[in-house]
């Protein structure tokens, strides 16, 4: 299908091990997917370390990594990520930003985020939603510079940045 999905609550299977989580995610298991798995694990060293551990015992940041790893282990052309920074410590958010920037090289990423810092560090285009409708869109570079828009829709004042 080519679409990867990381839901808001991460959706990892707590009772299964990291290995099992990854294997469930892999729709096909052959040589190419094995290679992809290796590359994915290269990106997320922690997962390799905790390969046999129960997913429920991972820390919040690691769970998030697992959730994303699961989504990209298949050949995805589109990746949907829903509020991944929620509940993560700032240093983890940094790691997350780095990860998504790497993923951007292979897939299109649609990211839903409330954390503007994260969104702006990662996004190329933006769409602002209000009441279920897109009220504004454009290049991220432009949005970063647009104080008026930011304070109107995102509640960000110059002082906060």
């Amino acid at each position, binding site marked *: 299908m080519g679409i990867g999905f990381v839901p808001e609550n991460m*959706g990892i299977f707590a009772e*299964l091990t990291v290995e099992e989580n990854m*294997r*469930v995610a892999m729709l096909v298991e052959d040589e190419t997917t094995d290679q992809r798995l290796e590359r994915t694990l290269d990106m997320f060293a922690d997962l390799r370390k905790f390969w046999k551990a129960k997913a429920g015992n991972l820390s919040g940041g690691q769970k998030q990594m697992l959730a994303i790893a699961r989504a990209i282990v298949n050949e995805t052309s589109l990746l949907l990520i829903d509020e991944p920074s929620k509940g993560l410590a700032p240093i983890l958010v940094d790691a997350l930003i780095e990860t998504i920037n790497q993923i951007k090289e292979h897939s299109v990423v649609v990211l839903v985020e409330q954390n503007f810092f994260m969104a702006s560090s990662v996004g190329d285009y933006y769409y602002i939603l209000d009441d279920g409708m897109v009220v504004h869109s454009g290049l991220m570079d432009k949005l970063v510079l647009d104080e008026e828009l930011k304070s109107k829709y995102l509640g960000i004042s110059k002082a906060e940045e």
Partner: protein
Amino acid sequence: MAEAMFRRWGRELTIAGAIVLFLLPLIGIPGKTYLTLTIAGLAMGMLVFLVASGVSIIFGLMDVLNFAHGALFAWGAYVGFTVFKHLMKWVEADSVLQNLAVFFLAIVAAMVVVALLGIVLERVIVRRVYGSHLFQILITFGATIVLVELIRVFWGPNDEVMTVPLTFYGNWDIFDIIVDRYRVICIVIGLIVYGVIQLILKKTKLGMIVRAGVEDREMVQAMGHNIFLLFTGVFAVGAGLAALGGLAMSIFSLQVYPDMGGTYLLFAFIVVIIGGLGSVTGSLVGALIVGLAYNYVAYLVPWAAAGVNIMIMIIILLIRPTGLFPAGK
């Protein structure tokens, strides 16, 4: 303090408590009788386990409560009965090989027929009522009635005698303890089934997907798996297990009758409550508890036998409603 301790060690405490309770009758019953009862209880427990495991996984994965499981149980027995009837020579032969062969054939026939029945049931009826527990109960209740009545149509309304393969009949004498052969066979069957299920669940990819689905059905679907195919498959397997249980049970009690599913369905539900939804191990533990309790009480206080398991169920509901081995749902 006690509450917190119970929450953490609840499961272990309950099992320990159960073991203690089960050793209690030794005070009142002579050792040999106790052993006989224990084996009978374990055997009965295994049979209930076969039915309960199906119900448990089906509910855990699909969130569907299948009231029709008892009818599938009965169908399994009847199909087996027909196989025996046509191959009566092998059943009555004094040859382990022939007995095992016809037994095996009966098992295969029963499981396949009932699994097919299960597939039809799932696709035609159950699929329409996903999401509404109320309608699931109603519709599977109706399905039970239809299935049981169809038994009456095809096989007649009377009780029939089920023959036991010759070499399965009788006792073994082990260290002066009389052990019923067939009961041991039941225990062995149960253990094998449990082992196979655990193997599939833990070691195969399919098993992982099922376990993942029990935890979070939607996520598995979002990952691209065909959850509906999985549902049908699991339902069919559950049905097959019930059939096996029914066949084994009919040989155990030497009879088949159309309503035989009813009592065992009740036991199965009690087991699922005690053991926890979606957990096969829970079903096993719960089933053994139910089987043993029933047999001990039946010996000591006959009229209370039916009620004791309901009491256990009520107690579990009061102190640990999710069961002994909840599957994270």
